[in-house]
Every structure is written in structure tokens, then in C-alpha cells.
């Protein structure tokens, strides 16, 4: 366990001077059990999120980033279970919480924003009532107070004419407004930890820009920490301070966003950055990562990325690399990280 703590990203960074991290995910494995067969979709993932930190998780579809987030929120789909490891919130294992304790936690402590606001909102309830539900339950507000809070929250998230919109149904609102309602709902009980699952993927760039800005401002105001799952590297760059890169259910690299973007230490991270079009460098050639993501049910013995990695050597195919500290506050899971990525090499 002491070993795991040493390797855990940001354990020693302590940017905000908090002794105890808000959220601690340690050696988390999620999977599907069929008889004696286990298919791991998240494998041995550990990270810390400190209070007021903004933590991004990126990866391709199927990398397990959303599942990790759902496990934290206790919203794993039927059939997927925690095989090992634990998720601790303020030092308490979430698995030890009873159902009612868990309900008390979701809202005032942890809240979640989903990707598709149309399916996440209740279509037959006015949005104001949906926002007011949390405060009424958790903060024991009266109907009137909660309604006022809902209007206030909607105004804070930048919804024009909130006094009228509070009576609207989700279908009457545009995608951007719906996503703001989701944010208002999630923040209505002033959570300490906000989980975001691709919150702006379904939105236009201009609206995405507005929503991200509102989200950042509100998190600053309320002092909430953010766990932000996305596949858009540019969005991560602009919202998060720390980053974890996932591939095939494993963490392959983590550290401060700016450092990773400037100087990636894992071939997969490098590949992701090279394949994404960068608006500020239009003439750069886009290099796709060859091959396909591994089949999780039939994971190769060695490094999961080895079949697609242009730097793979023999040892990569036989042993799986573990996350090692490569620089202060940074970790990477690659045998060749030191020889491949020298400090300052571009």
C-alpha cells in the first residue's frame, strides 16, 4: 500500500496545501464476471483528486474513462462490478457506505453532469422543480426557498430570463440551455466534487465555450473540485490543471496538463497529441495511431499499447509496465520512457 501511495499521481504535489485528498481512487479494477471468467474494463487505476483541483481523464472510446467516473458516482451499469481496489471520499471507503448514507452524499458532496442532457433530465418535470429537488431534500429548504434558489442557480449558469425558464420543460430548451440546467442542478447543493462526463461533446463550439467558462467560474465560486472526462484534448487543456491518460482500462500517464502537453512521456499520449488537429499549428502533419484498441476480453500479456506502439521492443510484449514516477508530480507506464522522452526533447 505504501508503494501504491508513492506512485499515486499528485500525492506529493499538494498544490492546495490539503493534507488529505478529497477523492482517492486506489488500485481500482472494474469488470464483468461471467462464471469464472473476468473481463477487466478498468485495471488497477489509482489517482487522487485534491480539493478545488481540476482533474481531467482522457482516452479513446472503450478506455474505461467513463466507467471509472461512474464507479465514483456509484452508477455502474448492471453487470459491471468493482473487482478490487477502493474509492475513498475524504478517507472513507465508498463501498462501506449504506444506501442511505450514499444518497446523503450525492448532491451536497458529490454531483455528476452527464453528456446528453436530454436523456439525463426528466422530460415530464419542469426544470425548476428538477433543480429544486436536491436543495429541498438535502438542505431542507421550503418549496419557496428552493424555487428561489433554482432561479438564482439558473441565472448563475447564464440562462437568460431564468424566472420564466424555471417553468419550462426540458424539450422547450436548446441543447446549451439544457446542459446549463444540468450544471445548475448539479451545483445546487454546493457539492465539493463535481464529476463531468463529456459535458460539452454534444454542443456547438460557441456554446461549448460559454458552458465551459460558466462551469469553471462556478467551480471557483463554490470551491468544488472537478473530475472531467473527455476525449477532446483541447478542452482538457483549457479546463483542467491535472491530467490522467487512460488506454485499455489502464492509466498510462498522469501529471500536470501543461507538462504533459509540452512533453508527453508515454508513446500513447504522444500519439494522441500528434493525431489531433491543432488550430494554432495548421500545417503540422496529423499522425494517426496505427492499429486498433485491444480487445479487453483477450488482453495481450505485455503492455496493452505494445501492438500499436512504434517503439515497442521484446520486453513490452511479455511484461506489463507499471506506473513509475518519471519527474516530480508525473508518472508514466512505459519501459522506454526514459530513453525515448528526454527532458526538453520535442
Amino acid at each position, binding site marked *: 500500500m505504501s508503494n501504491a501511495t508513492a506512485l499515486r499521481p499528485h500525492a506529493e504535489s499538494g498544490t492546495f496545501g490539503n493534507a488529505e485528498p478529497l477523492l482517492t481512487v486506489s488500485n481500482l479494477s472494474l469488470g464483468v464476471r461471467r462464471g469464472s471468467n473476468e473481463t477487466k474494463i478498468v485495471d488497477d487505476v489509482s489517482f487522487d483528486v485534491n480539493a478545488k483541483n481540476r482533474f481531467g481523464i482522457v482516452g479513446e472510446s472503450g478506455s474505461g474513462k467513463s466507467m471509472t467516473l461512474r464507479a465514483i458516482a456509484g452508477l455502474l451499469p448492471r453487470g459491471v462490478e468493482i473487482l478490487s481496489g477502493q474509492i475513498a471520499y475524504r478517507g472513507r471507503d465508498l463501498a462501506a457506505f449504506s444506501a442511505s448514507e450514499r444518497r446523503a452524499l450525492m448532491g451536497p458532496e458529490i454531483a455528476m453532469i452527464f453528456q446528453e442532457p436530454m436523456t439525463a433530465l426528466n422530460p415530464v418535470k419542469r426544470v425548476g422543480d428538477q433543480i429544486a429537488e436536491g436543495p429541498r431534500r438535502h438542505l431542507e429548504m421550503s418549496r419557496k426557498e428552493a424555487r428561489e434558489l433554482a432561479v438564482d442557480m439558473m441565472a448563475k449558469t447564464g440562462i*437568460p430570463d431564468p424566472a420564466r425558464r424555471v417553468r419550462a420543460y426540458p424539450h422547450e430548451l436548446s441543447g446549451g440551455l439544457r446542459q446549463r440546467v444540468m450544471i445548475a442542478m448539479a451545483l445546487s447543493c454546493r457539492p465539493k466534487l463535481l464529476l463531468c462526463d463529456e459535458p460539452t461533446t454534444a454542443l456547438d*463550439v460557441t456554446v461549448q*465555450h460559454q458552458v465551459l467558462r460558466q462551469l469553471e467560474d462556478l467551480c471557483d465560486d463554490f470551491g468544488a473540485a472537478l473530475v472531467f472526462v473527455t*476525449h477532446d484534448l483541447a478542452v482538457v487543456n483549457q479546463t483542467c490543471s491535472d491530467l490522467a491518460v487512460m488506454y485499455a482500462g489502464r492509466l498510462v500517464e498522469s501529471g500536470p496538463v501543461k507538462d504533459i502537453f509540452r512533453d508527453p512521456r508515454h508513446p500513447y499520449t504522444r500519439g494522441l497529441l500528434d493525431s489531433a488537429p491543432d*488550430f494554432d499549428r*495548421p500545417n503540422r502533419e*496529423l499522425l494517426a495511431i496505427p492499429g486498433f484498441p485491444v480487445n479487453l476480453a483477450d488482453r495481450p500479456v505485455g503492455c496493452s499499447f505494445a501492438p500499436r506502439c512504434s517503439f515497442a521492443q521484446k520486453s513490452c510484449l511479455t511484461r506489463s509496465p507499471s506506473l513509475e514516477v518519471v519527474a516530480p508530480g508525473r508518472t508514466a507506464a512505459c519501459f522506454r520512457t526514459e530513453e525515448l522522452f528526454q527532458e526538453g526533447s520535442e
Partner: protein
Amino acid sequence: MTHVSVLQLSGITKRYEMPAPVWEKVTKQRVSVPSLIALDGIDIDLRRGEILALVGESGSGKSTLAKVLVGSVTPTTGELTYNGEPMPVPRGKDLTRRIQMVFQDPYSSLNPRISVRSLLSELLLLHRIVPRQQVRAECVRLLNLVGLDEDALDAYPSQFSGGQRQRIAIARALAVRPDILIADEPVSALDVSVQATILDLFDSLREELGLTILFIAHNLAVVQHLSQRVAVMYLGRIVEVADTDELFARPQHPYTRSLIASIPRMSGDSVNAAELLEGEPPSPIDVPAGCRFHPRCPVAVDACRSTDPALRTVPAGALSGAHEIACILDDPPPFVGADTAPHEKENR
């Protein structure tokens, strides 16, 4: 360099009549019949062998324009000219073949019960592209063209990843040997690492087959990387057209500027650094009077509320040819953040 225009659109308008409100039906009083104006006078040329990108927010009419081009939607008014001849309505089998489409979501645009072989050979036989004996060889050629192996022939769409499915969809569009390919957000459903290969494929198709491609996208970084020319749409109108380099180097229309300012940057600082475009696009049922962008425009003047600007040519930079904008202001004053490089912006 002279440009040969393959497809010319002049004054294309698409109006959808909305159902009358219930009380008007009951009282049999026809007071107002609102209509949704999806396209409002689109004039643009598609030049042979170019990739023209069409960008804009959702609801700006990009996809309606694509449907008009492939002929699945008939425009209310306006004319389509293909190779100098007016396009008949309905168009015949041969003309239909010339303009093909690739859709956004390769998971729903391929029939899960039809194998790749029958998907392709159906088209080849219907349009008599090759003699019956050569159908198999042609299928293999098509698959190779889009970077797939012969093994894919007898597989079903479910056996492929998103990127591979999109390749199959492209092979299907290419099977009938079109001149023009309309690609409606073809990479937005794909992972970044796969996106790059599909973009490369479009570029090589343009180079090798001389295809003309209309590429609809909302990701401006992708557009900048791939296209030769860009048309920016706002609420059913084209508000700015220019060569890609010119447009991104010297965006003239305030809307284009704010679009560019809101791109999430790979190397920029916080999102808060850039100027923000307020509000959301108004509904195409209730288009603002005057310039349709004026309610959101950061530099609007009084005249903008009354004058509906038409596309006009503005002097372009040394780089390239025509640059057209639909804005009454000459060289609208830049607003903060729109054209400063992100790393120069103040760090929060």
C-alpha cells in the same frame, strides 16, 4: 489558376411551412402561418477538385444544404447548375449517381444485415458500373481504395470499428463513381486517433481521383487542416467565404471571428482568456430583422438593425483570391481575443 465550377447554387431557399396553431385550426381563422426558413438565398460555387468546408452552429442549415445538393430535399426556390446545365427535378439516375453522400454516424448509416459485398455489388449492378463478371474485382478495388483488405468483403458492419465503418461508407459512396462527394460531419463520431486517417483518406481521394468534396464540419481545427476553401453559415445564410488560409488569417465577419475565438486550443491558456460570443443562435422560425447576426454581434451599429447585408467582395490579402462577407461594416473593428494568438493572451 483558373477554377472550373462543377456545381453552382444560385438563390437556393428552403422553407418549411409549420402547422398552424391548434386554436387557429379550431376557429378556422388563419392569422399566421409561421414558416421555418432553413436556407435563405444560398449562392455558392463548388469548384472542381477542391474541398469546400461548410461550417456553422447547429441550426444554421448546413445539413439542409447537403440534402439539397444530393437531391433528397427539393429547394423552395433557386437553381442548381451542374456542369453548366440546370439540374432537373427530379434528377435522373445518372445525375443522382454524380453526387454522393457520406453521413455522420457510421453506426446508423450502414445496414447491419447487409454484408459489405452485397452493399457494394448492389450499387455496381444497379448503376451498371462494371460488367457482372467484374463486380467482385471492383468491390476489392473499392475496398483497397479506402484502405481496407479483401477480407472485409464478406463481413458485416458490426464486425468493424467506427473508423473502418466510415471507410466502408466512403467506399459505398465511391462505388458509383461520383464527381462530387458530400460529407456531413464524417469524422465527428470518431476517436481522435482514427480521425486523422479518415481526413488523410479524403485528401488522397481528392488528389488521386480529382473528387470535389463538400465537407461539413463544426470542428474548425479539422476544417483548417483539410479544406481549400471555407464557407461560414449563420441561420440559413452564407456570411463569409474565402480560401482557408485567408479566412483563418484575416477573418472579416464578426461571426467568423467569434467562431474562431471559441475554438478550444491545444496550446492556449484558460477558456476564460478569449472573448465570448453571447447567446445562442436564434430560431430560424423567427429570424431577426436587418442583419441576422446583429443581436449577438459585439460590434453591431444602428444600421445593422435595419439593413440585411448581402455577400460582397472585400479586398483579400496577398495570399489568395476572392474573399466575400455579408456585413455592412468595412473591416469591422477587431474585438479582444479574436485575432491575438492564444499564447499572447493574458494568463489568468
